[in-house]
Structure formats: C-alpha cells, structure tokens
C-alpha cells in the first residue's frame, strides 16, 4: 500500500445486518441519488437446504480500491483517488463514456441519465471533510459498519482488523479492495 497519511476504509460486520436498508435510504437522502439507482446496496443470499436455511445479508458499495481500475481507464481523469484513498468522480470532467462502469469488478457505479455522468459512493467525502462520518455508517442501527482511518493505530477499524479475521471480495481482480468483511 502506498504511503498515505490517511487511508479511509470500511469494515463490515455482515452478521449484524438485518436488511433494514437504512443505509441505502440515508445515502439516497444525503447524496440526492435518484430512485432506481443506488450507491450502496445489500446482497441477499439464501444458504443451505430446507429446512436448514439461512438468509445472509451483506451490504456492499464502492470498495475504494487501492489500485482502482475505474481510475486507470478513465480517459479524462474525471475518476480520481483522493490522498485519503477515497475514489470519487469529478462530474464536470466526466464525459459519460461509462468505461469505468465496465471496468469496476464490483459494478459499484451507475449512470445518471439525467445528468449524463457516472456516479458512485465517495464515502460522503463532503462529510468526511467536515469531520463527520459517512451517512450510511452514521445511520446503521445495528452497527454493521465500522469506518475509520487504517493508518491511525488508535482508530476502531485499525484495532478491529488487528484482532478479527476478515475477507476481501474478488481480490483476484487485483484492484486492492478496501471493504473488510469481518468473519
């Protein structure tokens, strides 16, 4: 990992998720996401055979990869990575070619037809800059989401990742995802 003073990341304790979708609603309200599109979502999976069934919920959004494919393929530099690791889109530079959407292994981006630009989760960068938490983290009633600076040894996320095992999704894509799913 490149040396950064800050490295924001998200740990997700999916076992606590109750699929209330408060994070999705909070994000929609905070970022003005139109209906039918979403910056974050909850994967549902039914495991096992009847009658021993288990429903698994797993929140997902942009993984804010360390080597983001979307940033690499962007022809204008509209997709960029901030110094703190957050991957964002500068809508005034976006031409709407949607190459980044195709390059994203997590399908975490969507196209705003009304604006002609691509949008995605930016971990509520405007809130981070004010020292606040991302809307989805703040609103989660069952404390599924742990947000913080990986480079800060006193942060909750740093400490929890030291103690607990975690899984990264689609590591083989080679983009260095930064959403840590706690096991």
């Amino acid at each position: 990992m490149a040396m950064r003073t800050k490295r924001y990341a998200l740990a997700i304790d999916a076992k606590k998720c109750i699929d209330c979708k408060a994070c999705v609603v909070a994000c929609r309200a905070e970022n003005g996401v139109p209906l039918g599109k979403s910056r974050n979502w909850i994967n549902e999976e039914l495991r096992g055979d009847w009658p021993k069934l288990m429903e698994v919920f797993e929140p997902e959004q942009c993984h804010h990869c360390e080597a983001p494919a979307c940033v690499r393929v962007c022809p204008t530099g509209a997709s960029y990575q901030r110094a703190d690791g957050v991957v964002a889109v500068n809508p005034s530079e976006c031409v709407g070619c949607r190459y980044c959407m195709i390059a994203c292994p997590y399908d975490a981006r969507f196209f705003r037809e009304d604006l002609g630009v691509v949008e995605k989760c930016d971990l509520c960068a405007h809130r981070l800059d004010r020292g606040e938490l991302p809307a989805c983290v703040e609103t989660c009633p069952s404390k599924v989401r742990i947000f913080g600076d990986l480079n800060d040894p006193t942060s909750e996320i740093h400490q929890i990742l030291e103690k607990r095992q975690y899984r990264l999704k689609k590591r083989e894509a080679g983009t260095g995802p930064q959403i840590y799913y706690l096991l």
Partner: protein
Amino acid sequence: MKTIEWQYLIVSYLFLGGLSAGLYFVSALTELFRKDDDSAQEHIARLGALLASWPVMLGCTLLVFDLGHWYRAYKLFLHFRWESPMSIGSWLLMLFICISLIYAYGWTSRDGREHFFGRLPRRLRFLGILNVDVAPWRRPLAIAGLPVSVGVAIYTGVLLGAVQSRPFWNTNLVAQLFLFSALSSGCALLILVLAMRSRKFEMYQFRSLYLLDVCFLTLEFFIVVPYFIHGELSVEAVRESLKLVLGGPFTMVFWVFLMGLGLVLPWAIEVREVVPLFLTHVQLLPRMGVATPSPAGASVSVVSELSALAPPANKLHFSRGWAVAAALLVLVGGVLVRYIFVFAGQMSAIR
C-alpha cells in the same frame, strides 16, 4: 447493479473504425508493393484510400452520441492518459482521420481538384491555396499511416481486453482477433466494391486482395481456436464466461453465424477462387501491366508475350457473384465479432 452499458452504437463504431483501418492498411500495403504500371493494383490502392476516411468518421460520430454529453467530447482531447486505452484510442483516431484524409486527397485527380476549386463561391476562393498535388507524398503517407491504421484496428480490442473485471475480454487474443477481423473487413469491402463496379478489370487481377483476405481469415480462425483452448485452461471466472458462447445465449450466433457463415464459408469461397492461381503457376503479381487475359482462341499478336503471363481465363473461377457473396459474409462476420464480444463481455463477471 449490472447493466449492459455499451450497446449497438459501440458495436457499430467498433466495426466502422476497424473497417476504415482495414481499408487504409490494404490500400497502403498495395501502394507500397505495387508495380508502377499495374493499373489494377493502382485501382485497389486508390479505392481503398478514397473510402478509408468515411466509416471511421461516421463511427466517431456514433461514439460521440453515445457519451453522456455529446458536447463534452472535446474534454477527451484536453487530457492524455497513457494508462487509459480510451484516451490513447481517441488521440489515435484523430491522428488516423487526419492522415487518411490527406492520403485520400493525394489520390484525387488534378481535373477533379481544378473543377472543385474552380466552382467555389468568391468568398471561399482563398481555399484555392489548398489545391496542391499531394500525390508525390502517397508513399511516405502510406508508410506513416500503416502503423496508425494497425493501432486503430487493434486498440478497440485492447480497450476491451484491458479490463480485469470482464473475464470474457481479459486476454490479448481479443485485440488480435479485432485486428485481423478489421483488416479482413477492409479487404472484403474492397472486393465487394470492385466486384460490383470495376467492369474495366477482370476479377483475377484483384487476386492480391483475395490472398490477403484468406491470410487474415486464417489468422482469425487460429486466434479463435487458442482463445477457447486457453480460456478452458484458465481460472474459473474465464471458464464460466466462455459458457456464454459454449451453451449460453450467444452459442448459436457465435458458432453458426460468426464461425460458420462469417468465417469458414467466405474463407472456403476465397480459397476456391485463389487455388487455381497456384495450380496454373501464375505469378501473383505480374511483372508487366497485363490488362486482360487472352480470350480463348485469340490469334497470337504483339501482346502475346504479355498475355502469356496472364492465367488462362478458362482455368480460373473468379466470378463476381462469388466475390460479392464472400465479401458480404466477411462484413457480416466483422459486425458479429463485435456484437458478440461487446455484449457477452459485459455479461461476464468475476463471481
């Protein structure tokens, strides 16, 4: 949220861009290697040069209208990002369009130019300074444009292949497949137009085009074969993605329409046309400007020495009908390659 973002506009552009690159490539190659007095070869080079610019310009227009904001397309040219195949591609396209337009201008006739510039309205008369003869620059332009045309033909495949997240694309073979498919489409369009319009020449005089096209189609075939072998021996995500054409939604269109009708059938037709050339020991490029084959039973004349070099007409097929059929099939195949790869690629994913 998985969506198919690139659709028919992109498919059309990929085909048209490749077609232009192929036309330029074949024209430039013919121009560089033709004998000075070979009027049939000159005809091929001229036709290719005059046609090459148009499909790519139409394709670029489609591309621009596929963007979220068509009027923001200029932003692509405010940046150069060597990591982004699309950025490299847009600059390559600009360069190619410029070179191909100048090259085409080099093939315009003096009379045509005089006629055009003579009829300009008074206010546009100053454009007369553009009435220059670029013909002496044809060969340097052909040499300069060859790598650019290959770049335009191959970058579309690189564009798709450079994405780790789509296992159907993520191999260098897609770039090569697109390259040879593009060059073959260029050949095919030339064969098509020549077969339909150039009554001055016999079809066997365009045999260099057939030979080139047979080479390109053969290469295409031997790219598809390793694509599958390599894919089946690769990681699970790739094997999974190949199911799209091996028992998935694209199986029929891939094997019957693309491989069968778009590749093997035109290949067979063209091989059938070309094989007699080798069997009758005819030189591939005649040393002298032979314009017509000796009509059967014609009396020996001054040109007998020349016509001796021409193949006996009755031993060659070279029918215009078959030429048109093969060319159309190759062009349809060119569209289908892009259709299948654009759609299937976006449907594939790492699980």
